[in-house]
């Protein structure tokens, strides 16, 4: 935590726990944001505490429960509930600046029991990247408009066999990792086939014909080799960047990642289009997922007002402009941030797709409970049972329902 005892003329030091400082593609952006903030606020210094994403939640909890929390912490949307439950977050209802500038519904999504506990920083959408070169080889010259077309094209691309490098070509990538992210990437499948995670009353309703149908579909994708089996999301990104998968679901920030992974570098951008995950019929709502990276202030921080200033900068036009300076494609959460020049640049026209979804059909993750992370892990494990172990979907889904119900009941 920033030092509680400051000499009169010494700047206040804010500890900022984050993971973007630990990632090569974003560490420079963070340094630039911090430099710009410190220039504008000479009495405040930011001490970045980068931790790799997979260890961030544990680190935040251990720091907080150990009595040494940061002043500001970056948190994935699925971490907010456990942090709030631990009682370590400061309420932001009175602290947050320029609340009227935030897009409709954004702040409500991070309000738990009337207490605003986190501020969305940049929003993400899980969308579909479509390799047009592979589709062309399979005889298609446009992206799919419906789910059925997507599957048809995926199977057709799979039938291409192997590429020039001898590597197998796949139609649609599905992760079978054992991490929460692999779980919530399955939600569009469940939603599409009519299943749900929770009812409006908050009951777990996974055990349904829709969920079973979704798992049967995923199992078929593995059995028919339309999707590579036994790979995690990072492997799918590699394979897409190598031009070996026709359809890949991921967040919009992958544009820079694909360029760095692809042997064709920036030129690979010309090989694919980006679209929302298609629905049942043309022009119907999609099953795209909405995800946020949030910013939180810690209850024990003695510099909560200064922390609120920092958050205001990061979510504002200047912060978002710097965050996007290297093509990070972060989406705005404030109206004023949405008007920066970056989004108007012709080469960023594809961002219109994501921005449409901000107020459109994308569904937020039902992450209001601290049990959500374990539930997503259980969902990922259920996928493994069906896809890797060949078990019957109905049996696995019944077990999943029982397990998630008990998680939410605890």
């Amino acid at each position: 935590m920033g030092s509680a005892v400051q000499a009169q003329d010494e700047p206040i030091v804010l500890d900022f726990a984050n993971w973007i400082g630990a990632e090569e593609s974003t560490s420079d952006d963070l340094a630039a944001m911090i430099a710009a903030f410190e220039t504008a606020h000479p009495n405040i210094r930011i001490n970045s505490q980068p931790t790799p994403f997979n260890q961030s939640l544990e680190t935040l909890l251990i720091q907080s429960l150990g009595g040494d929390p940061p002043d500001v912490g970056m948190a994935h949307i699925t971490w907010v509930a456990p942090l709030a439950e631990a009682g370590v977050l400061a309420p932001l209802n009175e602290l947050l600046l320029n609340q009227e500038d935030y897009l409709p519904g954004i702040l409500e999504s991070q309000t738990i029991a009337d207490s605003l506990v986190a501020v969305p920083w940049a929003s993400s959408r899980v969308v579909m990247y479509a390799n047009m070169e592979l589709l062309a080889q399979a005889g298609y010259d446009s992206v799919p408009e419906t789910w059925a077309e997507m599957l048809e094209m995926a199977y057709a691309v799979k039938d291409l066999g192997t590429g020039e490098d001898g590597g197998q070509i796949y139609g649609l990538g599905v992760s079978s990792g054992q991490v929460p992210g692999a779980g919530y990437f399955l939600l569009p499948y469940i939603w599409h086939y009519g299943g749900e995670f929770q009812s409006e009353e908050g009951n777990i309703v996974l055990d349904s014909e829709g969920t079973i149908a979704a798992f049967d579909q995923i199992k078929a994708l593995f059995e028919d080799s339309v999707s590579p089996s036994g790979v995690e999301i990072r492997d799918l990104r590699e394979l897409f960047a190598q031009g070996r998968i026709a359809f890949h679901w991921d967040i919009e920030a992958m544009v820079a990642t694909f360029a760095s992974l692809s042997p064709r570098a920036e030129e690979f951008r010309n090989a694919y289009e980006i679209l929302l995950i298609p629905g049942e019929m043309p022009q119907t709502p999609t099953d795209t997922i909405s995800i946020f990276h949030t910013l939180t202030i810690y209850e024990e921080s003695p510099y909560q007002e200064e922390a609120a200033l920092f958050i205001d900068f990061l979510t504002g036009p200047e912060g978002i402009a710097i965050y996007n300076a290297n093509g990070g494609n972060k989406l705005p959460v404030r109206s004023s941030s949405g008007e920066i020049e970056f989004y108007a640049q012709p080469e960023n026209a594809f961002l219109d797709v994501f921005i449409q979804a901000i107020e459109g059909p994308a569904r937020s993750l039902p992450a209001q409970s601290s049990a959500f992370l374990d539930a997503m892990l259980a969902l990922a494990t259920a996928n493994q049972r069906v896809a890797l172990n060949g078990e019957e979907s109905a049996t696995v889904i019944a077990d999943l329902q029982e397990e998630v119900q008990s998680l939410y009941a605890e």
Partner: protein
Amino acid sequence: MTVSPKIEPLPRTKAYSPFAGLTMKQRDNVFVWMLVLPAYIVLMLVVFGPILNGIIISFTQNTLRTRENPTWNSFANYIELVESGDLLGYITVTFVFVGLVVGIQFLLGMGIALLIGNDLPGKNLLRGLFMLPWTIPSIVVAFIFLLMLQPEYGVINYTLGSLGIMDARTQWLQNPQLALPAVIMASVWRQFPIMLIMFVAGLQTIPHDTVEAAKIDGAGPVAIFRHITLPFLRSIILINVLLAIIRNFQMFTIIYSMTSGGPLGRTTTLSLATHFEAFRSFDWGKGAAIGVVWLGILVVITLFFNWLQRRDPMA
């Protein structure tokens, strides 16, 4: 002439000593304990204190919600782990992992030590090369094997597929049958150099004249190994194996980095299970309960090895 006064010697009095009445050996023991006691106190505080705290936590309901007021729940955490079948699963995976890793690295270490322990040209270079895996951090080893075992572009699949030994797209880390062998492979590669170097050092202590005499009497390599090498190496073998067992009971980095305990929990050992309960499910009571079971198993194993050591005929 001045006569100096006669200085009478002081009367002899017996100085008081707390060690009066003790033999010389007892006084030495007391002195040794006085030297060791400060370190012992520190050890009690930083090692046994947390262990005792962990044992107490294992008998409480201590979660994210109840952490400010944990309640005593007796053996409820243990009962829940046993009834769910999870604990038996963790113990089984741990024993299989430890048994195979220690067994394979023992055979590898001993075999290579016998080869390079002799007067082999270039043995020093070989010893240095064989030590290299030990110098690589476990996390790096994990990522090396992650890349090598990648089903689509890993070198192991490419090589085995080219030789026609197996499918070139074999799943390793997400195959329920192959994930544990994969992490065993990585762990053995990382750790066998320590086993090897201890055996090499031990082989140097075997008297040459004993071996020569055996050869003169017609003993072959197997007989020499069985009746001379093994007895002389008994203590080193016991210590080496015990340390390897403890080290692999504690193994976390390689397994967590390669498989995160999956798929389907097939590589979830006691160490990973403790971590998952405590820091993923935020149930510190149950995590501590797994830790106590883990501790109990290691204590039993250590006592067993100490007993074996005391029976060493060469001691």
